[in-house]
C-alpha cells in the first residue's frame, strides 16, 4: 500500500473575478521512502496540490471540490480535526520557500523548535530542548546551545532554512513536503541544503515531495518526477525516463528552453504565448493553445494520464493515439 495516495484532487478558488481551477483532477501516489518531484511553472498548481494535502488552503476563497488523499489509511481531506492534528506536523511535515516569512520573527528559535514536541510527544520542556539541540546539530548548525536562543533575523537565509528543516524533522515524519525550499537561496547554499535534505532522508527513511520549477534540482534528487501544467499532471515518470525520453510536448518544450542544455549562442527554444487563464473553463488539453502539435481534438477532449509503460504516464492525446513520437 502506498504511503500517500491522492485521487482526483480538485481545488478551486472562488473569487470575485471568477472560479480559478488551480488544481483540476490530480491523482498520484507515493511509496514509503520515495522522493517525488513536482515540476511546473508558477500557477501550474504544484504548491496548491500540496497545500490541499496539508489542509493549508485558505477557505474561503479556496475550496476542495473533490478528491481524496489517503495517508496510511486516513483521508486527509475528510478526516476529523483531531485525526488531522495527529498527522500534520508529526507524521507529515512541510518546509516552505521563504524561511524568513515562515519562521515566527517574535519567537526564539528554541521555542519554535520545541513546539511540535510539546504538542505531539508530551515531552517536558527540558527534554524537548535536548532534542532540539540534537536536531540543530544534525542539520549542521555549529554551536547549537548558543544559537538556539537567537531570533530568526539573527540567522542568514541558508541558516534559517536549516532551522526550518530541523523543525520539520524534529518529530521524525514519514513524509516531508518541501515547497521550493532552495529557490530563495544562492547556488552554493542551495547545494548545501540539497545535500542536507538527502542526508536527512537517508537517516530517517522518509518520503519526500519536492516542489520546484528547476528541472536541474529535480534531476539529482528525485526518484520520480511529475510535470504539472494548468492544474493538471501532464507527465509522470521515473527521473531518467523523464529527462532522457520525455513524451509530452510541454515537457519536451520545457527541456528545450533551458539554457544549460543548449549549445552556446544559438537561439533558445521558446514556448509561444502564456499559460491559460484558469478562471475560464478549459475544455481539452491545457497546453493546446501553445502546443505546436495541437489539432482540433486537442481543444475539445480533455486528455487523461495514460500509461506508456508501468512507470511512465503522460496526458497528450496525440502521443496516446500514436501520432506523435
Amino acid at each position, binding site marked *: 500500500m502506498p504511503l500517500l495516495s491522492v485521487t482526483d484532487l480538485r481545488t478551486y478558488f472562488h473569487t470575485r473575478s471568477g472560479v480559478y481551477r488551480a488544481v483540476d483532477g490530480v491523482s498520484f501516489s507515493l511509496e514509503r521512502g520515495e522522493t517525488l518531484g513536482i515540476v511546473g*511553472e*508558477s500557477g501550474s498548481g504544484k504548491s496548491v496540490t500540496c497545500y490541499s494535502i496539508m489542509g493549508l488552503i485558505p477557505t474561503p476563497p479556496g475550496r476542495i471540490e473533490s478528491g481524496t488523499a489517503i495517508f496510511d489509511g486516513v483521508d486527509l481531506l475528510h478526516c476529523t480535526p483531531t485525526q488531522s492534528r495527529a498527522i500534520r506536523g508529526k507524521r507529515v511535515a512541510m518546509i516552505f520557500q521563504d524561511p524568513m516569512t515562515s519562521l515566527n520573527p517574535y519567537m526564539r528559535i528554541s521555542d519554535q523548535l520545541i513546539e511540535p514536541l510539546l504538542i505531539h510527544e508530551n515531552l517536558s520542556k527540558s527534554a524537548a530542548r535536548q532534542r532540539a539541540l540534537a536536531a540543530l546539530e544534525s542539520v549542521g548548525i555549529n554551536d547549537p546551545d548558543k544559537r538556539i536562543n537567537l531570533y530568526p533575523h539573527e540567522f*542568514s537565509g*541558508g*541558516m534559517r532554512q536549516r532551522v526550518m528543516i530541523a523543525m520539520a524533522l524534529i518529530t521524525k515524519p514519514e513524509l516531508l513536503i518541501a515547497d521550493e525550499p532552495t529557490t530563495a537561496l*544562492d*547556488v*552554493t*547554499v*542551495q*547545494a*548545501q541544503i*540539497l*545535500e542536507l535534505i538527502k542526508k536527512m532522508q537517508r537517516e530517517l527513511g522518509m518520503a519526500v515531495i519536492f516542489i520546484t*520549477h*528547476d*528541472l*536541474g*534540482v*529535480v*534531476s*539529482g534528487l528525485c526518484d520520480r518526477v511529475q510535470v504539472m501544467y494548468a492544474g493538471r499532471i501532464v507527465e509522470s515518470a521515473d*527521473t*531518467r525516463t523523464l*529527462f*532522457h525520453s520525455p513524451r509530452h510536448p510541454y515537457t519536451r*518544450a*520545457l*527541456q528545450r*528552453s*533551458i*539554457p*544549460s*542544455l*543548449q549549445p*552556446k*549562442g544559438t*537561439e*533558445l*527554444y*521558446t*514556448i509561444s504565448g*502564456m499559460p491559460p487563464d484558469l478562471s475560464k473553463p478549459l475544455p481539452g488539453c491545457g497546453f493546446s493553445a501553445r502546443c505546436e502539435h495541437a489539432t482540433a481534438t486537442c481543444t475539445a477532449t480533455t486528455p487523461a494520464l495514460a500509461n506508456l509503460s508501468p512507470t511512465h504516464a503522460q496526458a497528450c492525446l496525440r502521443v496516446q493515439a500514436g501520432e506523435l513520437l
Partner: protein
Amino acid sequence: MTSPTSSPSPAPILELRDVKTHFPISSGFLFKRHVGTVKAVDGVTLSVARGEVLGLVGESGCGKSTLARTILQLVPTTGGTVILSGQNLTTSNTSDILAARRDLQMVFQDPYASLNPRMTVFDTLAEPLLVHGVCRPADINARVAALMRTVGLAPRFMQKYPHEFSGGQRQRIAIARALALEPKVIIADEPVSALDVSIQAQILNLLAQLVRKMNLSLVFIAHDLSVVKHISDRIAVMYLGKIVELGRAADVIERPRHPYTRALVSAIPTPDPDVERTRQRIVLPGDPPSPINPPSGCAFHPRCPYAHEICKSSVPPLAPFEAGRDVACLRTEEISAL
C-alpha cells in the same frame, strides 16, 4: 592593478578602473558615530567593448548590483573612475551625467516594482523621449509604437497599465524603456531571475537579438551561471566586492580556474540525472562572509578548500593566468596542476 589581458577590441565603450564603492555604517541616534564601512565594490577593473555582452555573476551580497548602480552613478563612487565613451563619469557634474545616461540605460530585476503602476505603457516609454527631447511631440506616438514592436509587444496595448501585463511582458516594457534613447550600453540587473523558464527563454532571446541588431553593449548581471553562459561573450565572477575571475564565457564555465568559480560551477544543478548522480560536487562550507568585516587576505580563504597560510595575509591581485583569462588567486598554478 594589472591590466586585464582578456579585453577584446582596442577601444572599449565602457571602462572601469579600480572602482570602489564603500558605504559608511553609523550607529547612535543623536550623535552618529562612524562604526564601520561596507566595502560593497572594492577595486573593480573591467572594460566592455562595443557590441559585447559581459556577464557578471556572484552570490547575493557580493556587490554586483552596487557595481551596476555605480556604473550609472546612481550611488557615489568612493574611488576609481568610470569612463563611458571617453567621458569620465566619476568627475562629471550632474548635468553631464544626466546627458551621459542617454547612452547608458538600465533594466531591473523585478518588472513588478520597476514600472510605475499609474503610468500607461505610452507614458512610460514617452517619458525618456520627452525628457531628453529626442523627438518632436508629433512623432512620439510613432516612436513608442516602433519601440513596442522592437520588443515584441503589439502597439495596440499602448494605453494599458502594467498590471494588465504578465511578468514577461512587463520585462519587455522595461527593456523598451531602456531602448527608448538608443543607448550604447545597457546594464541588466538580474532581468530574468523573476521569470519562469519558458518566459526566461523569450527574454534572453530578445536581449541577444537586440544586442546583435543594434550593436549594443550589455552588462548582464545574474546569479544563474547557465543563463549567463548562454548570453555572454565574457564572464566576470565577483566575490565580496572583487572580481576573482574573468575570461571567455564558455571557457570560464567549462574550465574554471579560481577555487570559488570551481565551487560555483559545481553547485549548478544540471538537468541530466546521469550527470547529477556521478559528478563530484564541491560543497562550500558556510555562508558568504559579511562585507562589513571581510576576512583578511583573500576574502575567500575561510571557505576555500585549497587555502594556505599565505592566503590569510596577502590579497591576490586579478592577474593574467593564461590567454584570455585573469584569475585572482595566489595558488592558481598549483591548483591547476592538481
